[in-house]
């Protein structure tokens, strides 16, 4: 094992070090400065990247759990904004979190927030342009989701409500939670991340659009899940949220 490999391992597990040069360094009290700095860097990043999880469990619990995760999965590169790709999966397996079954999915929404925050810039589709299109042409039109749009359906638990109450100002926190599935749509209109509730049909509609299906087929997928789905309202909500990217296809269709 190289010196740096032995040093790196000793940062997380000094007792296991066998390299004599590294053992000599571990013996100095100042070795703890490196251990503390590396761990603090990991924990600060995870706490910043998973604010709703941290708010739900409190900073002490969060950092104790995050320390176990950091030792097993240090950051992959210097972009600490992206650190915690596996944190939701870690929480899923983390026994002390078993009483908080919503925690992993809340972490997944925190991760989606970061993806949206850092996603490429692109002009969203202008709803007014779409409305000028003849209705019969809509069905064959393919809309692509905006690169800064993310959506997820959580079938078992009200993840959107739990997450959004712990991200924003928490004004709605007094209302009783209805324990059923919920979906979340995150977009970035006007350069700030925004979130909206979305139903299962809406998620299926966006999934279909993302896979390149035209609106007619996407609508069928939505209706399969919810026969009463109000497609016009759903499309309007998605457009207003900036869920689609502006497309040349539309320009061609209207010309």
């Amino acid at each position, binding site marked *: 094992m*190289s*010196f*740096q*490999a032995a*040093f*790196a391992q000793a*940062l997380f597990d000094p007792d296991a070090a066998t390299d004599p*040069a590294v053992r*000599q*360094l571990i013996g*100095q*009290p*100042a*070795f703890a*400065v*490196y251990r503390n*700095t*590396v761990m603090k*860097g*990991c924990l600060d*990043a995870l706490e910043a990247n998973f604010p709703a999880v941290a708010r739900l469990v409190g900073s002490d619990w969060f950092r104790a759990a995050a320390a176990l995760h950091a030792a097993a999965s*240090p*950051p*992959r*590169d*210097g*972009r*600490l*904004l992206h650190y915690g790709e596996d944190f939701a999966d870690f929480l899923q397996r983390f026994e002390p979190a078993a009483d908080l079954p919503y925690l992993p999915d809340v972490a997944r929404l925190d991760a989606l927030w970061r993806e*949206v*925050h*850092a*996603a*490429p*810039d*692109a002009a969203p589709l202008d709803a007014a342009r779409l409305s000028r299109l003849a209705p019969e042409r809509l069905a064959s039109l393919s809309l692509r989701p905006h*690169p*800064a749009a993310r959506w997820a359906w959580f079938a078992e638990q009200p993840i959107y409500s739990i997450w959004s109450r712990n991200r924003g100002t928490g004004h709605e926190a007094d209302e009783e939670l209805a324990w059923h599935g919920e979906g979340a749509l995150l977009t*970035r209109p006007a*350069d*700030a991340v925004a979130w909206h509730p979305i139903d299962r049909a809406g998620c299926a509609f966006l999934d279909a659009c993302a896979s390149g299906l035209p609106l007619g087929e996407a609508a069928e997928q939505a209706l399969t899940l919810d026969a009463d789905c109000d497609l016009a309202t759903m499309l309007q909500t998605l457009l207003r949220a900036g869920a689609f990217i502006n497309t040349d296809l539309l320009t061609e269709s209207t010309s």
Partner: protein
Amino acid sequence: MRPPALSAGLGLKAEHYDAAASAQAEGLWFEVHPENYMVAGGPRLGWLEAVREQHPVSLHGVSLSLAGESEPDAAHLHRLAALADRIRPALISEHLAWSGWKGHYLPDLLPFTRSTEALHRIAANIGRTQDALGTAIAIENPSHYLRFDGHGWDEIDFLAELARRTGCTLLLDINNVHVSARNLGYSAEAWLDRFPQALVSEVHLAGHSHDPALGEALLIDSHDAPVAPEVWTLYHRFIARAGARPTLIERDGNVPAFRELMHERNVAEAALHESAGALEALS
């Protein structure tokens, strides 16, 4: 194109974007960690560009791992070059340290034995970086905490030799000089007086703290306090000898209001004006 005249600047904190963009002071500039802006798009780049429209900006990397046993990550270098193209920084710098290991990033500036083998390796890594960026970078002296038995090179000689071989310049962190000298038991003044002033393209100043257990016996480069009086004294000593150099105040913890940081920055600005070198540079 004539490089912008930098005098005293500040590390840019996210909570101060608006204040920084609208701040007006001659020679004011800002420094950021490029890692925080390696995003495909979104508001961060917009905030940085808004500051950049008003002030020079420097990119101060923390994760290239130039002293690493492996080469700098090519994808990371590519992202750094793309950011530099976009921001057109006045300076780009990195540390004489390592932080990468087997596809992982350990968020610290880790130490190594200064051997001739390390010198070759680091010079090659600086060369790769400068080739990717198309410009020279500055290398910073890190804070030291541990005694290494096997150093074959003195730190100043090592830095000067890297500069000679690669054409890089040096970023002199005077808080790190103070912290290292105290931790390892040598004279900060004597060390500073030997530092090759002609190679210094930038100076860093920052606050440090005492180890919670060992107290003054172990100083920590924590960037969470104002610059200490001893560090200001060393700074005056250096610019009296070397003349004015672009000087940056770093603050990463217990971040106060922007005007408080500007006040500290103005102390450095005044010192730069007072030094004979500053007058020369301004004339």
